[in-house]
């Protein structure tokens, strides 16, 4: 029995260490963002909100934040719409090539980001889409679609087919059935897919690095160049803002999941 307790203590110790390793390093950006100095020194010797002031006033940071937010909203709308339609079309169908189609819808998740990035860069150069809003929207939509298709597809599998038959039997049209029966049931899945699409676009780095131009950068791209080219603690404020945004959104996902039937 003592042997078992020892084992358990060792395991708990490992669990605590791993937990610290996973959670604590990320949080280091928060105190640095409130540092009063122009360095990454940790812990900071003085405090202030100068880095936030810079972040929200200097045009290169503020513009990239606004670009990222607008882009994420557009991508969310486009990807959610297209992905939901696709999931509806594919729900409970089977035909030759169905597996290949599923594979295609998952492919942007499986193919390494750098491969997608280089492929899109080569294509966009030829099509004149580098550094354009359209290029960004299309690239991010491709990356966000799988999340929507998976989430809505999973929600659709929970819809009892009898409900649709009952609605039809009571004289509802296909659209009325969808709007009044199917959609309310799959709404949490659609919402989760939409939030995944938002976070995918808002956080994406690799593909964005390749389709950006100095005139049109997203926030993660601006952060990437900041880490490679300069020692500017404004990035700590940027990181904190990004953490707050994604945490808030994912808390929302958790809430929709909890209220799901």
């Amino acid at each position: 029995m003592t042997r078992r307790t020892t084992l358990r203590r060792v395991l708990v110790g490992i669990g605590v260490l791993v937990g610290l390793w996973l959670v604590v390093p990320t949080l280091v950006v928060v105190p640095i963002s409130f540092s009063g100095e122009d360095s990454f020194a940790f812990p900071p010797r003085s405090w202030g909100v100068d880095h936030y002031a810079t972040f929200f006033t200097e045009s290169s940071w503020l513009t990239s934040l606004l670009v990222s937010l607008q882009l994420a909203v557009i991508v969310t709308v486009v990807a959610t719409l297209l992905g939901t339609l696709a999931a509806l079309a594919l729900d409970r169908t089977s035909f030759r090539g169905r597996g290949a189609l599923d594979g295609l819808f998952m492919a942007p998740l499986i193919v390494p980001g750098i491969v997608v990035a280089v492929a899109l860069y080569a294509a966009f150069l030829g099509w004149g889409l580098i550094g354009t809003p359209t290029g960004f929207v299309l690239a991010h939509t491709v990356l966000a679609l799988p999340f929507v298709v998976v989430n809505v597809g999973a929600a659709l599998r929970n819809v009892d087919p009898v409900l649709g038959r009952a609605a039809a039997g009571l004289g509802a049209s296909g659209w009325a059935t969808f709007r009044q029966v199917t959609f309310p049931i799959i709404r949490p899945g659609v919402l989760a897919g939409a939030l995944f699409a938002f976070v995918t676009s808002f956080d994406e780095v690799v593909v964005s690095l390749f389709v950006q131009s100095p005139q049109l950068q997203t926030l993660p791209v601006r952060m990437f160049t900041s880490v490679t080219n300069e020692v500017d603690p404004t990035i700590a404020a940027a990181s904190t803002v990004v953490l707050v945004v994604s945490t808030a959104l994912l808390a929302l996902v958790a809430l929709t999941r909890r209220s799901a039937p």
Partner: protein
Amino acid sequence: MTVTSPPAEADALAPPDPPSRRRRRRVGRVSLLLAVPALLVLLIFFVVPALRLLWLSVTTPAPGLGNYTSLARDEVTTTVVLRTLFMAAVVTVVCVLVAYPYAYLMTIVSGRWRGALLAVVLVPFWTSLMARTFAWVVLLQDNGVVNGLLGALGLGPVRLLGTTGGVTLAMAQVMLPFVVLPVYTAMRGIDRRLVDAALSLGARPVTAFTRIYLPLSLPGVAAGATLVMVLSLGFYVTPSLVGSPQQSMLAQFISVQVNQLVDFGAAGALAVTLLVVTLMLLGGVRLLTRTRGAGTGAGLAGGLS
């Protein structure tokens, strides 16, 4: 963020519904045409660019497999490929060694603690990759916190930023969930009575573990390890920022071919090679998980890259 996504994704990849359910078609089933807009976007802005890259790799600058053969002969390329394989292997081993006891701990604690352990492991999925990578750059700098800790233990200061050790520490943190989740899934499916039976028949605990428990949990380990291997091979952000240009990995190397040398032939050949290796490894995982039914987080791969 993806508590329910791995099983959902496994469903999406699973074969279509069994015949009994397929027969119960919904009345007024929506037309397949609804999938067309999404399909067009994927075909034009994903499949076509990928095929174009493949085409470029065998036509630029001259038609033929010249890009592939010259890369195979090039010393720098082979060094980068070997270094990438080595780094991926190191990260995979670290992840497996850390994830195994962590996943086991998840199976023996109470429900509330299991939820907490799961939430902690999912933190890397929802925190911004850039924010996390920047945090590692700060922590690993010469006068950073990690070096402070090492110094206090009498081990430092050590150079971490730009070294294999630093990159491993940062990369393994990002990859850990991809091992913990499938290993935990596999362990949860193990019937504890098998171990109890072995013990009551006189097996020593170590024997019961190595002969019964370990083999039953191996499919999860294999699935997780392959995923981490695959993700590490193509990982760009963390090695670029935490590592050094002199120690570049494959993804950085590809990016240099494109951005600095504007050599789409070579970049295409490297990208195609990376993609083929990735698909082969993932195909292996699918075979493993299909036969044993262990869940994987394959679908989450794209979130990082």
